[in-house]
C-alpha cells in the first residue's frame, strides 16, 4: 500500500479513479501501488486532472494545486 497527499487552492472535492475521497486537503489517501487517476473539482472552477504513480510504502504528493476560475481563459 502507498499513499497520496493532495492540497489545492481553493479547496475542492478529490476523486481517485472516479471514487470520491473528500475535500482537499487530504493527508494520506491509501492506494494500491500503480498508476491512479486523480481529479480535483469545485463548481465555478476548472477541474484538475492528473495521473499519479503510487509506490508501496511511500507518499506521493500533489500539493499547492491551483484551480483556475472557470472564467479564466
Amino acid at each position, binding site marked *: 500500500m502507498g499513499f497520496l*497527499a*493532495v*492540497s489545492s*487552492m*481553493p*479547496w475542492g472535492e478529490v476523486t481517485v479513479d472516479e471514487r470520491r475521497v473528500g*475535500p*482537499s*486537503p*487530504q*493527508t494520506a489517501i491509501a492506494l494500491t501501488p500503480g498508476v491512479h487517476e486523480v481529479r480535483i473539482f469545485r463548481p465555478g472552477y476548472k477541474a484538475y486532472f492528473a495521473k499519479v504513480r503510487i509506490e508501496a510504502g*511511500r*507518499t506521493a*504528493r500533489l*500539493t*499547492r494545486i491551483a484551480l483556475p476560475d472557470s472564467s479564466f481563459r
Partner: protein
Amino acid sequence: MRDIRLMIVAVLLAGAQPSAAQQADLLLSKGVFAYEDVWYDSASTLLRRALSVRGADSLDTPRRARALTYLAASEVYRGRRDSSVAIFRRLLQESPRRLPDTLVFPPPVTSVYMGVRASLHGVARIRSTPQGVDLIIVAFTAHRLGVGVRVHDGDPVRSLFDGSVSDSIVVSWDGKKDDGTMAPNGAYDFVLIAFGPKGEIAKAVRFPVVLDQKDATAPPRPRSLEAPPLFPLTGLGGDAVELVLEATQRHLVVR
C-alpha cells in the same frame, strides 16, 4: 521527489535567523507554506513560534488571526480536534469578526469553527476612552443582554442597556448615575448580563472600573482597571459572579 521536499522543509525550518522584527512574520509565512504543502506538524510548530513572539515584534491583530486560523486548521488535520477548538476559541476572543476563508478552508475545518462560535454566543471587552468606559459586545447569535454599573460589590449606580443584541453594541458609561449627577470617586463594576431563552440569567460578568478625578478643573472620568479582557458568554459558572438581578421591561437593576 519526497527527499527534495523534506530538504526544502528542513531548510525552511533551520534557515538563517532573521531579525527579531521579521521573525514573527517570517514564521507565519513559513507556517502557511507548510500548511499548504500538507506538512501539518511543521505548520503547527512554525505557527506556534510565530504566535509566541512577544513585544514590539509580535504579530499584529490581523496576522495573529491568520496564524490562529491556520494553526487551528493544522490541528484538525493532525487529528487534534480539542486543540483546534481551543485555538478557534482564542481566535474568536481576539478577533470576533474573523471568519476562516471558505475558499481556503474546507468543511472539516469551518465546521469546527462554527461549532465553537455557536457555543460561545458572543464576546465582550472593555476599553477606556477620553469620555469614560466603553463595553463592546459582539453577539454571535441574538441575545437579550443587560448592562449596568454598580459600586464595587455594592449598590446599583446606573442602568445602561436592556435589550436584544443580534450583532454588536457599544455601551458607554460617562461616570454619571441614573439621576444624572456624577458618581463619587471610587471603585465600580461594569456588569454585563446575558439572558437565556426563558429570561433566566445565563451569564453575568463584571469588569472592574475606577472613577477618579486627577485634575480638579476637569470632570471625573471612569476608566477601565485592566487591559481589555475578553469574556466568552458561555453558560453558568466560570467567570460568573454573585449577582442578584431584577429585570423589568425598561430597567435592569443590579444588586
